[in-house]
């Protein structure tokens, strides 16, 4: 990768233009991964990979094509450009295709630029010891501590030139708890960090999830039906929110199947919900410098007190729909916290459910969903009580997002997003 620089990209770009393209763009992403894997509370694998992904894009007489390669040698580049020509010649004219203009995209180096093998091993060893001593009922199924460094170079015929490098750590854990032959449901937790200063147990919501797992051992099948309020944990809320936000993005907006295509500046969700995207929030280890279509990333507000402020469209999606382009890729969610503490959020629920995780299933195109709830508890008289299994939560995605009755002051921060706990009405939980 040492010989790869913007001049190298510009030379490839020149060859694409020579091949008959009016506009060309070249992107090279070089990634280094170091992964320490633990299976069942013992080290299993140390893995490192180095990969390049080269994307060649071209527009010829309004006809657009993309080719992806992972080799930078002459033979492969030549083949790639020939394939790009063939693909563009067979593509229809599409005037919505264009490349990002020259702009001041900051060239960054962020986060750790080399993995710290010894510290990684030490952190994982300490994590295993810590879990063993403090949470003896916890059975780790797998723990993956990863270091990832990504260098992105991008240049196009409009004058865009970007060379950015970011490094970060990511830790993901799968686990359950076991006592006297009884087990909890499996749970997962993952988070990002820019260094290894903090104990792995204290990354994101891992400690909270392991403690909750221990309480889930006494799990019993849920009986009957519950239509009372449901408090949704950040991980589960993020799953629902992802489905909901898909209605603001290219696929649904271009195909005309979005629920919200005519809802800009209109109420589409509870007034308690404000969703921002902050790609450079200093609280995040995994940030975003540049959008997927090559624009410098900036913060935006998607929902302001339930009012839809902007769609989440790429440059292409914006041109196809005659709407504004999103100024980021929509990954770094910052959902505004509410006024209630978590204690009060639960305290206001007499008879309800705490929904820890959603498993499988997805809403139909009209928003109706029925999904299995995992890691969940009944709420009785304002307190979390019995853990329950075998229950399905159902409702309509659009109605649920409008039926949020409170949002917690506390938010879960996983190094990439900030998401609160929310309480909703209108969802049904059904058991055996």
């Amino acid at each position: 990768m040492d010989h790869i620089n913007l001049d190298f990209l510009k030379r490839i770009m020149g060859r694409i233009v020579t091949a008959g393209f009016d506009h060309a763009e070249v992107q090279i992403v070089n990634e280094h991964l170091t992964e320490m894997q633990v299976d069942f509370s013992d080290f299993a694998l140390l893995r490192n990979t180095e990969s390049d992904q080269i994307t060649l894009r071209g527009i010829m007489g309004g006809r657009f094509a993309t080719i992806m390669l992972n080799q930078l040698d002459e033979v492969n580049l030549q083949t790639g450009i020939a394939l790009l020509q063939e693909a563009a010649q067979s593509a229809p004219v599409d005037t919505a295709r264009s490349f990002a203009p020259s702009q001041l995209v900051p060239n960054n180096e962020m986060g750790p630029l080399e993995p710290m093998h010894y510290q990684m091993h030490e952190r994982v060893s300490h994590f295993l010891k810590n879990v063993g001593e403090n949470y003896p009922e916890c059975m780790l199924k797998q723990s993956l501590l990863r270091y990832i460094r990504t260098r992105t170079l991008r240049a196009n015929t409009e004058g865009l030139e970007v060379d950015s490098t970011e490094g970060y750590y990511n830790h993901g854990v799968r686990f359950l708890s076991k006592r006297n032959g009884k087990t909890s449901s499996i749970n997962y937790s993952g988070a990002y960090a820019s260094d290894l200063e903090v104990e792995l147990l204290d990354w994101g919501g891992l400690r909270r999830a392991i403690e909750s797992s221990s309480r889930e051992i006494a799990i019993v099948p849920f009986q009957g039906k519950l239509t009372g309020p449901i408090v949704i944990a950040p991980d589960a809320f993020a799953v629902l929110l992802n489905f909901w936000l898909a209605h603001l993005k290219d696929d649904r907006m271009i195909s005309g199947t979005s629920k919200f295509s005519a809802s800009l500046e209109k109420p589409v969700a509870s007034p308690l919900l404000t969703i921002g995207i902050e790609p450079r929030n200093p609280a995040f280890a995994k940030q975003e410098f540049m959008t997927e279509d090559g624009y410098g990333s900036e913060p935006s507000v998607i929902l302001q007190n339930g009012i839809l402020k902007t769609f989440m469209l790429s440059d292409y999606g914006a041109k196809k729909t005659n709407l504004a382009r999103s100024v980021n890729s929509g990954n770094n969610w910052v959902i505004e916290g509410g006024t209630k503490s978590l204690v009060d959020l639960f305290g206001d629920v007499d008879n309800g459910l705490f929904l820890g995780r959603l498993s499988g299933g997805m809403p139909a195109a009209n928003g109706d969903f029925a999904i299995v709830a995992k890691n969940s508890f009944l709420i009785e008289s304002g307190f979390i009580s019995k853990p329950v299994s075998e229950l399905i939560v159902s409702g309509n995605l659009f109605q649920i997002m409008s039926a949020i009755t409170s949002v917690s002051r506390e938010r879960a921060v996983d190094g990439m997003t900030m998401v609160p706990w929310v309480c909703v009405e209108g969802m049904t939980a059904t058991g055996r």
Partner: protein
Amino acid sequence: MLDLKSLKSEFSTASGVYRVYSEIRYQENRKILLVLNNGELETNLTDTTRGVSARSFTGGYWGFSSYSNPSKDSALSALRESTRNAKFLAGRSQKSGSTIAFSQVGKFDKSYASSKSPMSTAIWLEFLKFLDAMILRKYPDLKSRQLRMQALDIEKHIVTSDGQEIHTMVPRAHFTVSMTKSTKQGPIQFQDTRGGLGQLQDHFLVNPDTFESWIDEIYQMTARKAEGVSPAAGPRDVILAQDLAAIVMHEAIGHAAEADLVLAGSVAAEQVERLVGSPLISFTDFAHTYAGKTCPQPVHIDDEGIEAENTSIIHNGVLKSFMNNRETAMHFEQKPTGHARAFSHSDEPLIRMRNTVVHPGSSKIDAMIASIEDGYYLMKAGKGQADTTGEFMFAVGTGFEIKNGKLGRVLRDTSISGLAFDMLRSVSMVGDEFKWDSSGYLCTKKQLMPVGVGSPAIKCRVRVGGN
């Protein structure tokens, strides 16, 4: 293609004084994806990923390293680094008694590449545009339509330090048509997929008119689903259609019998030689051939150089064996039967199913439907999940009511859920017509993986929907 034979002599050099098992793999994944959305070419992608990796095992620990530059130097670097990585872990921890099985395959070479010449992107785009125009002309009332054509060739060359030398090329190609209709309750979508083992020219180098009746069927189901009903929620007698049964069995039962997940405490852990389901159920993971025909995802030798053999998971309701890799086979004192596969050159081999088959029974589908007074015939698996405790949940794309033994109204999207072995115990009829699923199913377990899944229809009791 990188010649790995010359690297065999490097195995002992890289390991030094340690006793090390190593393998080197060169792999190339070639992907084509064309998506036509309402007549517009949304995606026109050719993606070729190749590289070389090495994996080494010593003292009970694995090391892995990969490079996307597939040169001899990169292969040697990967071998050295993988050995160093394994030693790094072995030098800091102690794991006694962990060893791996060895193989005696020798040389093996098998390619499923098409005998027909490949076609240019332009030909496939014309194919898609022709069918898109046909849909638009015949069915202007659709809110949206999407045509997706994709192909994935996976080619591997593997050498191992115990003397195996393997080359395989397994392609698959699929074509999906998706239609959406507006209703008062919001948009309703239905889709279907054709394809399987082979390259695009093996499946779709035909007059596109021959797809008209299939497209008509998709439209009819979309239209009927738009007028359809939501099923009543709760435990119900149902018939899982072939495609749905195949995927549910793979996810809810198959994964629980993967030895790495068994070691992690899956629900199958203590159940070998015990009755876990109806005696009507037999479930096998076939390596490459079933009923005299090549399976959708044939595996002859796995990525650890182990000869792939059929693995009987459940026979007449009794759990028989787990699926192993070299390491877990030694742990369970079973024979490794070739389940270790990696998706890309930069992935390490994991225990994966190849072609899971629910063996057909003797029931006619009409008799199965006639046996249900009030239930559902369910089709089209959507997004789902099953965890190792046996709890599963799948979105279901459509189906039919069954009232008094007869098919009734079409169903809208719903879901099924339950406990894997409870569902298996409830099986009361197994259809006599087996079918491979043609949806191009990609299983996810740390990495994606193409798999084959097939089943007859199954009558059982599961929980339907949620309201």
